[in-house]
């Protein structure tokens, strides 16, 4: 039960983060005036996000290993 709760929390955070990121990236490409700036900033944002979300996943794994 506790495991499922943590997994659900992680998934909610992940989905909210992805939706928020898509909205932001859409605005940058749709309303920005410089495509190169948009591409560079989006790539750096995605790389940083993946790095942090992997960290969060590692934390989740350690929680799940302790609740088993």
């Amino acid at each position: 039960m506790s495991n499922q709760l943590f997994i659900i929390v992680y998934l909610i955070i992940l989905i909210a983060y992805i939706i928020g990121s898509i909205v932001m990236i859409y605005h940058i490409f749709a309303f920005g005036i410089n495509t190169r700036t948009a591409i560079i900033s989006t790539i750096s944002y995605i790389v940083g996000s993946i790095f942090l979300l992997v960290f969060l996943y590692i934390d989740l794994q350690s929680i799940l290993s302790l609740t088993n």
Partner: protein
Amino acid sequence: MIDKVTGKNLHFPGQHKGEEVKIVFRRSMFFLIVPYILNIILLAGSLIIANVLPASIPILQEPFLAAVFDFIITLIIIFIFYTAFLTWTHYYLDAYIVTNQRVLTIDQIDFFHRKVSEADIGNVQDIEVVVQGFFANTLNFGDVRVQTAGADQRILFLDNIPYPYKAKDIILQFAEANRKVELHNAYTYEPNKTETNQNPKDSSNNPIS
């Protein structure tokens, strides 16, 4: 050095056919750096808490609670990263564009909330510069108010742009150049010839937003 972007590869939504971006002004970097300093303070604070708190609170040394604590700290760091990028997005999407036809102010108030104002650059009559406050004077940024003449009088606000006096001169130069082109077109206009207007101004067919 003026904070500007120039080039022919710049495009914006609602751009007219044959319209060329001459210069783009943005708000001063001061308005980007201040939120970033706050973000860095918040990040440093959470990293200090992540290191100090488990040592001082014995209950956080229990493996399960320590793991949950790490999870929360990582979540805070993700939130800080997201807000930092959000700040940059707002900074990037607010722009004051001067083209060979118009002056546009684009204000991204929020996501899905955008305000675009424009005026014909040939009608620019008066430009007022307001530099107010300690930071504005020391860091050299201020507000530029562009007023147009004619029946459709309007005022455009270019808020907190760096080097406002230089910006004023640049806008006036483009306005003068536009008026010369218009005058030249008017004198060389031949009704029987196919119209090749170098500086089309028909904004009614292509509204900006």
